[in-house]
């Protein structure tokens, strides 16, 4: 046994309203840069749907993830080491930018600079790749809320595996949202496919990262990731991916996507796992057993043996305590309501999902029956094959049993808590029907429904932080086109460009200059105009208003 800690996430899909706040805030923080316009480290997909990039789940086409060979050993689906090197000149599994979408901007200037005409001016879309006019035909969430999915969703690989009848019916039947980030897998195929060894899994918290100095742009990680969550920055020509906001995690703070989630459906916490058993579990023959295999790799943080071994393996006491309080451990291992996304890829993903009960409740309620009655719900779960089978295709490699268990626990919680809320006696039978006690149900209710900030996020600080580090955090990723958003282009630029490569930036000096610029933004980003984002709200500054029409003569 070798104990390692993994920072993990669970998302409660029952509460996702598909508002895309997580995607937008993530984009603002991480991918709002040249070369990354088409990239969403976090995206929200409507299911059923073909996802982003299009048809990413179709591994017959993209060859992502692992396969188990005849000898029972895992092999990258895209080929072994020699094949990787032999095909390094052209990666035939690589999605092109069109499989995501061609990024664009609008000709906004036209709106203010067009001469007076009979018709109002129009801001036309311009491609960010060619600079030319383009017509927008796809985007990161083009089939949002099933929009146009009559045209596209037949390509959904999960629907493909279901019956013809389902394909025709799904739109009337159910719909839910699937927010996705990097899975920070225990057995990452992207890391395994990187010829340069630039990708790595952090020993301390299991976060999967790309070393931007080591990446040589061979692009093997992009195609090897079955979730297509490693992206190619087409300006810097290096791979980039979701970092699980590690600068925040290290300070004990939740990721941007979690913190800004209005549905409060994301959970962050540690999982202890046995690193020695990962490969064995990922190589299990029967795909339906992968879920249990992965659960068995997770260790019980209360087990004295595990604690002793964790200490021997260098895990600090406060981290073990955090693992004991982890909401992830409760959802994955105790309540067993969370399930992994596509375990059949054999990467051992560590962002798990609580399947949505709402499609079932909707059907029951719409039929005029009581949508909170446990018998109605249980019957519906048993009877409504379409959502259950679809969810199974997503979370359990097609095995409907764990989906039913999970949904029934959610249904039981709903019914059990209704009795309490209505002042009736709690019905212990409901809890027993799903193998839980009333106390457990109430604890699960507090975690899932009340979902207090401190219960959702149990994140121990990394063991090297100091107050001074926090002060300088803002500039640490500043490189041209790098993850630090390209540096302080409009404010502290003097320093950013004049610095000798390899020398540290003194953030204190830089922020001083930024502040000075804020109070007097004399260097607007567009000449003759003033950048309102830099305005401190005090007084009128140059460029805020256009010059008087006839500045030469008195008024």
């Amino acid at each position, binding site marked *: 046994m070798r104990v390692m800690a993994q920072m993990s996430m669970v998302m409660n899909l029952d509460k996702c309203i598909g508002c895309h706040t997580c995607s937008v805030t993530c984009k603002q923080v991480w991918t709002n840069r040249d070369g990354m316009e088409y990239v969403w480290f976090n995206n929200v997909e409507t299911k059923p749907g073909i996802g982003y990039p299009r048809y990413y789940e179709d591994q017959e086409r993209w060859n992502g993830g692992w396969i188990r060979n005849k000898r029972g050993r895992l092999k990258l689906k895209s080929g072994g*080491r020699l094949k990787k090197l032999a095909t390094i000149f052209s990666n035939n599994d690589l999605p092109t930018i069109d499989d995501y979408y061609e990024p664009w901007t609008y000709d906004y200037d036209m709106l203010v600079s067009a001469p007076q005409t009979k018709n109002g001016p129009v801001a036309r879309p311009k491609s960010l790749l060619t600079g030319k006019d383009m017509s927008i035909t796809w985007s990161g969430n083009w089939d949002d809320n099933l929009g146009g999915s009559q045209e596209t969703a037949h390509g959904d690989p999960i629907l493909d595996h279901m019956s013809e009848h389902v394909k025709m019916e799904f739109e009337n039947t159910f719909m839910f949202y699937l927010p996705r980030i990097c899975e920070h897998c225990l057995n990452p195929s992207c890391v395994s496919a990187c010829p340069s060894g630039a990708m790595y899994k952090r020993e301390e918290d299991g976060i999967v990262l790309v070393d931007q100095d080591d990446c*040589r*742009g061979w692009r093997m990680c992009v195609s090897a990731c079955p979730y297509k969550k490693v992206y190619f920055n087409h300006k810097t020509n290096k791979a980039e991916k979701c970092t699980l906001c590690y600068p925040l995690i290290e300070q004990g703070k939740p990721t941007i996507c979690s913190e800004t989630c209005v549905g409060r459906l994301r959970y962050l916490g540690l999982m202890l796992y046995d690193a020695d058993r990962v490969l064995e579990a990922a190589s299990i023959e029967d795909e339906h057993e992968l879920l249990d295999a992965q659960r068995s790799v997770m260790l019980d943080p209360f087990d004295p043996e595990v604690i002793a071994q964790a200490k021997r393996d260098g895990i600090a006491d406060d981290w073990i305590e955090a693992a004991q309080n982890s909401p992830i451990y409760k959802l994955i291992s105790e309540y067993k309501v969370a399930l992994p996304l596509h375990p059949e890829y054999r990467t051992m993903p560590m962002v798990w999902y609580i399947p949505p009960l709402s499609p079932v409740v909707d059907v029951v309620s719409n039929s005029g029956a009581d949508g909170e009655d446990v018998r109605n719900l249980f019957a519906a779960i048993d009877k409504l094959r379409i959502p259950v089978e679809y969810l199974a295709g997503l979370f359990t490699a097609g095995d409907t049993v764990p989906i039913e268990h999970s949904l029934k626990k959610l249904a039981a919680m709903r019914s059990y808590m209704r009795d309490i809320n209505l002042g009736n006696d709690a019905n212990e039978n409901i809890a027993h029907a799903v193998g839980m006690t009333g106390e457990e149900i109430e604890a699960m209710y507090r975690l899932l429904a009340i979902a207090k900030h401190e219960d959702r996020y149990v994140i121990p600080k990394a063991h090297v932080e100091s107050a001074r580090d926090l002060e300088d955090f803002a500039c640490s990723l500043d490189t041209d086109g790098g993850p630090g958003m390209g540096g302080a282009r409009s404010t502290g630029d003097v320093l950013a460009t004049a610095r000798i490569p390899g020398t540290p930036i003194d953030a204190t000096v830089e922020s001083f200059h930024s502040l000075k610029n804020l109070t007097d933004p004399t260097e607007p980003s567009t000449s003759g105009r003033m950048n309102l984002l830099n305005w401190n709200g005090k007084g009128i500054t140059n460029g805020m208003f256009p010059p008087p029409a006839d500045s030469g003569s008195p008024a």
Partner: protein
Amino acid sequence: MTDMTVFDVLLWVAFPYVAAASFIVGHILRYRYDKFGWTSRSSQTYESKWLRWGSPMFHYGILGVFAGHVVGLLIPREWLYFIGIDEHTYHLGATWLGTVVALITIAGIVILLARRGAVRRITRVTTVMDVVMYVFLAGALVLGTIAVIQFQVLGEGYDYRGTVSPWTRSLILFQPDASLMVGVPLIFQLHVLCSTALFLIWPYTRLVHVLSVPVWYLFRPYVVYRSRDDHRGARAIRRGWEKSPVIESKHPKQKQRVGAGR
């Protein structure tokens, strides 16, 4: 040598050494100061259909070209005689293999350049340094191919192993002999000069990726683990990312290796 001019020495001694110095020092400096810029600059995400033909043709071709040059330039012919490859066998092999490989390579680079010119997305990200590099790269390829076809295929055959090859080795052994290159046919001379110029600009172009051939991948465990304490690369540790000794001493540092992470 009586018929050697200062110009000859500049061309055939000074210039190659300047190019070699630039090649070596340039790579070291680039590695030291611009690891972030060290990439293959792949344009495959913009366009894949043409690249999947052009790129392997060019790259496998150029590897063949490289191998041919190693045999022709660096290995003295006496050594080849010793293992049974006489002048005639060598000539046949070098000429025919060389021509085929050269044509594949040229076809590959033609596809790649045509694609670069025709697909606006790629044209737009092509830098000045890319253009300069392509001029010398394509120039060296075309000149070399013309030389092979003109002299080896159509002509009598030029014995470059008596002139260009010993000159190359004389440079490597630091006993440069410019006189060997004086009587060489113009087309060979131009090929050599063009290639030398390519080596000169090499480290400042996208060609740096050639030195990053990831052979090590064959011998590495699949999953790489690294501690967050590991500081790799040549950059100085930035403020805010150095370790704090105070807190470290309070808590046992988590340090443990799994697999053979670098």
